[in-house]
């Protein structure tokens, strides 16, 4: 999934701005998809790739800040870079608080934009990996039986086989069998690995 080429999505109502930024990014072999307003972008809302969204703050209809809100409602994982004609500090603070990666002022230099886009790609990859890990962890935990999950919950809290056996009213030998099944199903190599997997399955992303 992550081997797809990273993409920059540009949402700006100005044709000339979209065009010039597209040319600039394509010189760096970055794929660009541009949209003239928030509605068109939301309808095409892409998923499952590394990328970032460059959003113009001042747009007719739904503006940049509203688009950011709408995207977080839709569990967007793409980092957002804002572009604005006349940015002010309160506006940029609000945007960053709401999870924007950067807040750039027009006209933007190539260097600034590329720096921002590159760090956005790294962030995007990280977020995507987290999502994948979580999905894997959730899938493996979902394959456990109810008894196995009970054993696992106690084990990751540091309970010994003896304690688990007496707590669940089963024999020491049965606990060992359950544990071996748990390690096999989740692919965990040891107890620490199992703790990581259970934590990942509970992570928000």
């Amino acid at each position: 999934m992550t081997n797809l080429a990273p993409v920059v999505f540009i949402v700006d109502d100005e044709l000339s701005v979209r065009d010039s930024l597209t040319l600039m990014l394509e010189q760096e072999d970055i794929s660009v998809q541009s949209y003239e307003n928030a509605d068109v972008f939301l309808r095409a809302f892409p998923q499952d790739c590394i990328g970032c969204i460059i959003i113009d703050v001042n747009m007719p209809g739904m503006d940049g800040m509203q688009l950011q809100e709408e995207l977080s409602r839709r569990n967007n994982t793409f980092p957002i870079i804002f572009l604005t004609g006349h940015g002010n500090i309160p506006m940029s603070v609000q945007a960053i608080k709401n999870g924007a990666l950067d807040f750039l002022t027009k006209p933007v230099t190539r260097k600034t934009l590329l720096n921002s886009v590159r760090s956005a790609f790294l962030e995007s990859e990280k977020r995507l990996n987290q999502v994948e890990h979580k999905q894997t962890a959730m899938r493996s935990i979902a394959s456990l039986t109810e008894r196995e999950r009970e054993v696992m919950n106690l084990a990751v809290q540091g309970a010994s086989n003896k304690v688990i056996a007496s707590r669940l009213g089963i024999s020491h030998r049965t606990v060992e069998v359950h544990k071996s099944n748990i390690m096999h199903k989740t692919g965990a190599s040891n107890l620490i690995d199992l703790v990581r997997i259970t934590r990942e399955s509970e992570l928000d992303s």
Partner: protein
Amino acid sequence: MDDSLKNLNFRAIFDAAVEAKLLVVASGRIVLANSSAQLLFGYSEDEICKLTVEMLMPTQHREQHKHYRALFLKKPSKRAMGDGKALAALHRDGTEMLLDISLSSVETEEQLFVIVTFVATDQLLRVEEALQASEERLRMAKQAAGLGIFDCDCVNKVIYWDKSMRRLWGDEVHETLTYNDFLSVIHPEDRAARKAAYNRAIDPSGNGEYSAEFRVINPTNGVEHWIATSGRVHFEAGHARRLVGVAQDVTEQKMLQKKLQEQRAETECLFKQQVATRTASAIAHELNQPLTAISAYSEVILHALSNKEMDADKLTRALEGCVEQAQRAGRSLHELLAFLQKGEIKSEQLGLNNLIKEALSMVHNDGFGGFQQVLNLQPDLPAVQGNRTQVLKVLVNLFRNAVEAMRIASVSVSTISISVQTLAETNMALVIVQDNGPGLDNDMAKRIFEPFFTTKPAGIGMGLAISRALIEANGGQLWLDPDSKAGAKFHFTLPFAQ
């Protein structure tokens, strides 16, 4: 004399009188009291006949009355007591009554009798009380309002004034003053204006109303006070006789007025600053987009040159973009400057139908598309006279506003209707632009053409103000139809070319 009268005795007549009557002998002792008198004073006949007249008076008057009684006996006559004023008499229960008392005498061979007649003056008393109360109210009102009263004798040039008035002039002592004394405390700069007001008032052909404001310099402490006066002149035989009026210290109001004026000036200054800031930000807004594109295109070209990777098509595209955007920035700047300076504009013959179509395609290209358009054009419309860029700008502005309003309101099928009509009587073309958005409420409709008024989150609020100014500069008018039921409906006119 009629015989029947002979049978009528004194006592019966005395008793039948409506007024209270007493028969008193020289010593002052009461010898007879009629029933009205018994009722008035609250005594039985036996009881009252043991008293002297003095006993029916308040204690403090008794001694003096004995003296008056002696005087009367020396020269008895019919007359009123107390020179026509009501006198106090004492009821049995101790309450004082105000009574008109008159005296007359009857002489027999043996001795002199005095008949004392009492009439209650309650009615009179109530009128006096009411008068007193009203004077008291007037005094209190005067005091509360800080009013002084003056009465100027226009013939003898003497002014009578009350205490409040004297306080305003800083002279507590004199009840009258000469006209010259009155003038001497008025601020020299205000004398001429006050004199003119006075002359107007005493002019018999005028309405006699006097009203003046002037400063008075208190002679004792040198403090300046603003005085407002108003009054009315009374004429006699065509000449001003008296000027009666009121004066008030309005120093505080004057100070307040001055302060308000200063505040207003300050507000105006702030507003101008605001206008400057907004204008600058409008310019920045107009220039930022093209600058952004030019900057990015240029860097694209630079990068291509330094990496020797010459894709001719892309380079051409970037360079064309630069030129186009630089031109666009220049145009925006000229328009804005032309608007701000109201400079000369180039006027030409324009085909409205084509201009409307051009504006629509500009709006579509600028990301404001996605609406249905209903066109009611007039194919054979004569050319109008105006500046092409400006009229185009107004059209684009109206269309963009319509699109934004409909987007904000999430109208499902956005529609803009544009119709062109001919106004024969004024030789004008009329363009009507109507959307199917939420329209404007009354408050918004009133303010929509004000500079910096906006309903958009990121709006500057110059669009309609500029649009109206541009249409007016081209000899037409731009207005909002206040009665539009569905959506906002703008009208503008332009003159036909001669």
